[in-house]
């Protein structure tokens, strides 16, 4: 085992694998920063180039590229409030307010360092968990997956920034959006208004861009200043952001593990990992009032989970040949091109290749974060450019990001509609994250519910893990309300004491 582990490390640094990894990093860097160009599309485009490569070379190129997109996608989320990747939208919530406060450097430092920690934890989880993962994953059935989605939805209360009722309504609206399209059970058209475009449902990217980026662009243009309203020590404390990662070590590690776990579950995907990590960062924090206004913990959680999920994704792909996301399905294609069959062989005969995957994730993230830190000075200066010059650039960026989801102008209309909704919500103090969480988890919850009922009747409700998850969900709903009630009672008792 140890020999294979070390051989995996050495093979990553051999030529031409290392050179191809650097090329992959360069491509992934651009893909991550440019909105709309997803890791899946790029991976599919690059797959044919791996036909003539050796296994480790091919994975150094593809996985190197993939690992970087998750890291650099956070950069535009922090600097402009426009997600570079669909999976980096949650970073906007606190990263962009930090940028506006002149703390772009600190936010980027935190995002990058937590990404690195997350990637390392996810990668080593892949290495450590492989021998025991099979019974764990096989013990989870559709009822447990349904309850996991319900637990995720109950985080809505935590994401409501104190306005729990409005947060629950926003979460309900998100769930309503997730119903748009063909019903997976009966094929009934739900809220499609006879439009073929809506049969597939509402895409997450135009909704996210509309809700989060459009209001920020309007605000930026109205104020007419730069994004950073004040300067905090030129690059605003990159080192402080790095220190924050270790200062809030618990948040970083827990969100990394959460990301790894979510990554292991087929169908859950990167967006969910990030939003759940954000919700966990809020929920586990004693002081929730600063979230959404530039709390560094709101950057650390999503940053860590976004990268650690790659290790989790790989666990099921490598061990069982079950790709948990579209990206992993494409990577599975690379396995087959290389003549590798995921499953027991990857844990015995080809164990060194499995360990090389671990090392590729670790090494690419170290290189990427190192390169990013070198250029952070220049990147942060963009936030001091006058708003008038940035606004057309940002408008084009959001249009491209929305368009490339399905290559149709209708996505632009969806983005504009949600831009209007997002602006109204911001102005009136309605929380936006619950709406996204509802959209992300709604369809999944419904599908798993019907599968559970179809397979187990109502007996699934009495499975031990389902009961545990149900209790967690109830606690997640009740805790914020109880905490608010206790807070009010405490305030009243203090006033009475005076």
């Amino acid at each position: 085992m140890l020999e294979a582990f070390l051989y995996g490390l050495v093979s990553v640094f051999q030529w031409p694998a290392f050179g191809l990894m650097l090329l992959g990093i360069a491509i992934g860097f651009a893909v991550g920063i440019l909105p709309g160009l997803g890791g899946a599309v790029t991976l599919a485009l690059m797959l044919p180039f791996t036909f003539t490569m050796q296994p480790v070379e091919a994975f150094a190129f593809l996985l190197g590229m993939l690992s970087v997109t998750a890291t650099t996608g956070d950069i535009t989320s922090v600097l402009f409030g426009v997600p570079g990747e669909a999976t980096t939208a949650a970073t906007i919530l606190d990263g962009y307010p930090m940028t506006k406060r002149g703390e772009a450097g600190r936010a980027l430092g935190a995002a990058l360092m937590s990404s690195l920690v997350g990637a390392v934890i996810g990668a080593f989880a892949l290495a450590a968990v492989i021998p025991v993962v099979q019974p764990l994953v096989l013990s989870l059935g559709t009822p447990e997956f349904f309850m996991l989605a319900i637990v995720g939805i109950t985080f809505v209360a935590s994401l409501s920034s104190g306005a729990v009722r409005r947060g629950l309504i926003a979460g309900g609206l998100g769930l309503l959006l997730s119903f748009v399209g063909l019903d997976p059970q009966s094929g009934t058209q739900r809220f499609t208004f006879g439009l073929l475009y809506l049969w597939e449902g509402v895409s997450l990217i135009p909704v996210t861009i509309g809700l989060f980026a459009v209001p920020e662009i309007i605000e930026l243009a109205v104020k007419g200043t730069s994004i950073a309203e004040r300067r905090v020590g030129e690059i605003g404390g990159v080192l402080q952001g790095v220190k924050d990662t270790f200062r809030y070590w618990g948040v970083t590690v827990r969100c990394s593990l959460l990301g790894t776990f979510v990554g292991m579950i087929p169908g859950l995907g990167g967006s969910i990992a990030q939003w759940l990590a954000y919700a966990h960062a809020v929920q586990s924090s004693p002081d929730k009032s600063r979230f959404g206004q530039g709390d560094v913990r709101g950057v650390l959680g999503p940053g860590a989970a976004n990268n650690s999920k790659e290790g989790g994704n790989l666990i099921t792909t490598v061990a069982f040949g079950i790709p948990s996301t579209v990206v992993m399905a494409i990577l599975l294609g690379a396995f087959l091109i290389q003549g590798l069959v995921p499953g027991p062989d990857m844990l015995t005969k080809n164990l060194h290749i499995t360990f090389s995957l671990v090392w590729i994730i670790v090494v690419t993230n170290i290189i990427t974060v190192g390169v990013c830190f070198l250029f952070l000075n220049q990147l942060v200066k963009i936030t001091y450019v006058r708003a008038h010059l940035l606004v057309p650039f940002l408008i084009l960026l959001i249009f491209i990001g929305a368009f490339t989801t399905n290559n149709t102008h209708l996505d632009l209309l969806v983005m504009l509609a949600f831009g209007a909704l997002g602006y109204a919500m911001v102005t009136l103090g309605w929380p936006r994250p619950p709406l996204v969480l509802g959209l992300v988890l709604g369809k999944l919850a419904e599908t798993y519910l019907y599968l559970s009922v179809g397979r187990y009747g109502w007996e699934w409700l009495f499975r031990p893990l389902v009961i545990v998850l149900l209790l967690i969900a109830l606690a997640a709903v009740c805790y914020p309300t109880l905490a608010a009630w206790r807070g009010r009672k405490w305030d009243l008792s203090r006033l009475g004491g005076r």
Partner: protein
Amino acid sequence: MRTAWQRAELLFCLFVVVVLALALWTSLGWSPRAGLFPWVVLVPTLALALWQLIDDARGKTAPPAAALGEAGEAVPLEQDLPAGEMARRGAGVAGWILGFFVAIWLLGFPLGGGLASAAYLRIAARERWPVCLGYGLGAYVVLELFFRQLLAIPFADGVLFEWLGLELPFGG
């Protein structure tokens, strides 16, 4: 007497209630298989929205604190501009975003994006002509060469050229 914020909140909440009620009414026509989960979600959400609407109508809802101070206390919104001016400017920017969409739809991404950028800088930002033209040209080149040619993003041609039966060297 309601403030402008309270009127806006009331209107928005009414909009949410109407959307949810229409959605519930539509879903009642579905089979239980297709409608069960939506009903489970829509009924309580509509009830919560009605509760919120009643609170708004009774003027019980307060505007959100815009920011938090160093000690976490609520700090009122510091506005450099009067609310009316903010709303007027906000509507102007929203109009420009719509204008970008119309330009892109009519002329295609590269040409529409480039022209709209130059127009925004000249009309809204009152930048000098060389800056506007350079910016617009740069946007066109990046969109055309980088996004369309190199990354092969299938930008649709502008519908205006279709209507007129024209064909540009690179498309819209």
